[in-house]
């Protein structure tokens, strides 16, 4: 599904943040990426989703056999890549429903599916809202406008559930969630799991991994993956911290 080879990326001021990432995620797998603050996790998610502001200086990313880095962010999304933002953006004046419908129809067209009419769309929305226990009234507002931190995170997973991506990259979707919300978000993620889909979860906590059990766990530190293991690695990290992987830079 996803193969990252020797990926180097730098930010506008020239500082290199990713210093040779190697990572392969097979179809059907769930991978967790953990690592200290500032180690480059969101940068990796940004580079994968095509966020402007990064320059890839070396390496490659192959997604379903295609050069992912050659695609624009919207093309990546239509090809089935989804990023759940660490900090979802508020967009006043753009109605949530309207936005979601535009997104869904764009993605559906790319998959060769017909647009949903208003009735079908509403039906799909209601089913997924229920899964995440989001009130319909939230959808009448501007995108993420006036949402609480937890509501924003749930809205990301709600969008993911609507768009049904092949590859979902979740950047700290569990941060700032209460116990119930965490459970709902986990339910949303698990509902997406399947042999044809892959999930990369960036997280600081073992907590989420109890609900969404990963196949592999990686430690990203200083812009490199310094250790990989099974789900027990997350537990170990919870106990020992990142001290041992500290300054891989």
């Amino acid at each position: 599904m996803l193969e990252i080879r020797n990926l180097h990326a730098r930010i506008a001021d020239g500082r290199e943040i990713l210093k040779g990432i190697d990572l392969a995620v097979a179809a059907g797998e769930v991978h967790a990426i953990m690592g200290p603050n500032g180690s480059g996790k969101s940068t990796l998610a940004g580079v994968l989703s095509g966020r402007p502001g990064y320059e890839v200086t070396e390496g490659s990313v192959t997604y379903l056999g295609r050069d992912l880095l050659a695609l624009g962010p919207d093309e990546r999304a239509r090809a089935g890549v989804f990023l759940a933002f660490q900090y979802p953006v508020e967009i006043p004046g753009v109605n949530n429903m309207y936005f979601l419908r535009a997104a869904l129809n764009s993605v559906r067209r790319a998959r060769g599916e017909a647009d949903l009419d208003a009735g079908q769309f509403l039906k799909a929305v209601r089913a997924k809202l229920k899964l995440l226990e989001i009130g319909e009234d939230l959808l009448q507002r501007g995108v993420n406008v006036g949402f609480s931190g937890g509501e924003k995170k749930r809205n990301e997973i709600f969008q993911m559930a609507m768009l049904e991506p092949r590859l979902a990259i979740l950047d700290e979707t569990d941060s700032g969630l209460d116990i119930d919300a965490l459970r709902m978000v986990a339910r949303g993620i698990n509902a997406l799991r399947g042999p044809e889909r892959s999930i990369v979860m960036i997280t600081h906590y073992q907590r989420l991994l109890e609900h969404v059990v990963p196949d592999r766990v990686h430690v990203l530190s200083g812009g490199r993956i310094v250790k990989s293991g099974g789900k027990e690695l997350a537990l170990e990290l919870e106990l020992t911290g990142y001290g041992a992987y500290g300054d891989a830079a």
Partner: protein
Amino acid sequence: MSAFADLEPYVEAFKARPEAAEPAWLARRREGAIRRFSELGWPSRKQEAWRFTDLRPLQRVSFPPAAGACRASAADVSPWRYPAAGHRLVLVDGAFAPELSVIGDLPKGAWLASAAETLRRRPDLLEPALRETDTIGAQPFVALNAALFADGFVLALEPGVALDRTIEIIHLGRAAERSSQLRNLIQLGAGSRATLIETYAGEGAYWTNAVGVVAVGAGAALRHAKVQDEGAAAIHLAHNRVELGRDARYESFVLSLGARLSRHDVHARFDGEGAACGLFGATLLRGEREGTIASVVDHAAPGCVTREYFKTVASDRAHGVFLGTIGVRPQAQRTDANQLSKNLLLGRRAAIDTKPELEILADDVKCSHGATVGDLDDAALFYLESRGIPVVEARRMLIEAFAAEVIERIEDDVELRAHLGRHLARWLAGGAG
């Protein structure tokens, strides 16, 4: 034809006007007005109010008044119709088109007719619209309009008359290298109420020069919307003068989408205590278009409220201008005024000039103003794109959201909001911002 400042064709057109059976007072005022126009000449860019406006498209060609040779059909009108309107007056090239107009039932004490008809049947009603032809500062276009106008519309409500259904005025420009000189009057007696929407559209290189004289009496309320979507080669100049009586309410929403060169001037004056004036507008410019909003609000009475919110979007090589002055006279204590100009500059070759100004001569006032010029929010754009929305559509959504914020200010009139929203969406569908 000289390169500019050639006033002669207009003076000639004035002399060559067909003999009309007009009241003597009007003939006198027209004489005075054409003299005033000749004295003033075209506005110069040395004048502060015209500094940013490039009038060359108007000066390169002369635009004698349209002779009413062009006609329009119902099909020409229908795209511009406001579905919720209860009364519709259509004018084509500056002249009333009765076959395209529908005036519904009007309550007693309400007058709604073309200016020409009003002049024939109720000249007394039109007289106030021409009282100040040449005294509102140096306004050559207002003077020229007074000299040459043949038609327009008149809405006059006696005290206490409330019109429940919205009035719609549609003006279509058709005749190339001709001008439509429109003189409009809205006079609301004490405690009366109305909503009116003016729509300007057309095809070709014509010039619309509209002057509106609005008086909102004590405790009366007027909601005044305007859609300016003139043809891409047209010129649109409009000058509205608004006087508010005690406790009067005036609210205007101006959506400017068309014309090669457009300018909307509004001069509002508070004459009585406790009145409120809301001026809102969005101007969207692409290509090489040039659009100006110029507002002057004169707080001449105490305890009045002004809310101004104007937005401009300029892309390609377009040029947008906002000039806003709020003046508070010494007697206008307890004035509460704020003015905001927000602008979206899309592209390196587009330009926006914004000049908000407060002139405060009273001490017990609450006044503020602000102006911003920015680009689309990159984070928002990326968020939309990251959901699969193509970049062109994502930009369109953000531009729409930016401009629609002004439309959202229309309270308690879902239909009017939706109508302006549709015009905005149609404009956006016509090309990227």
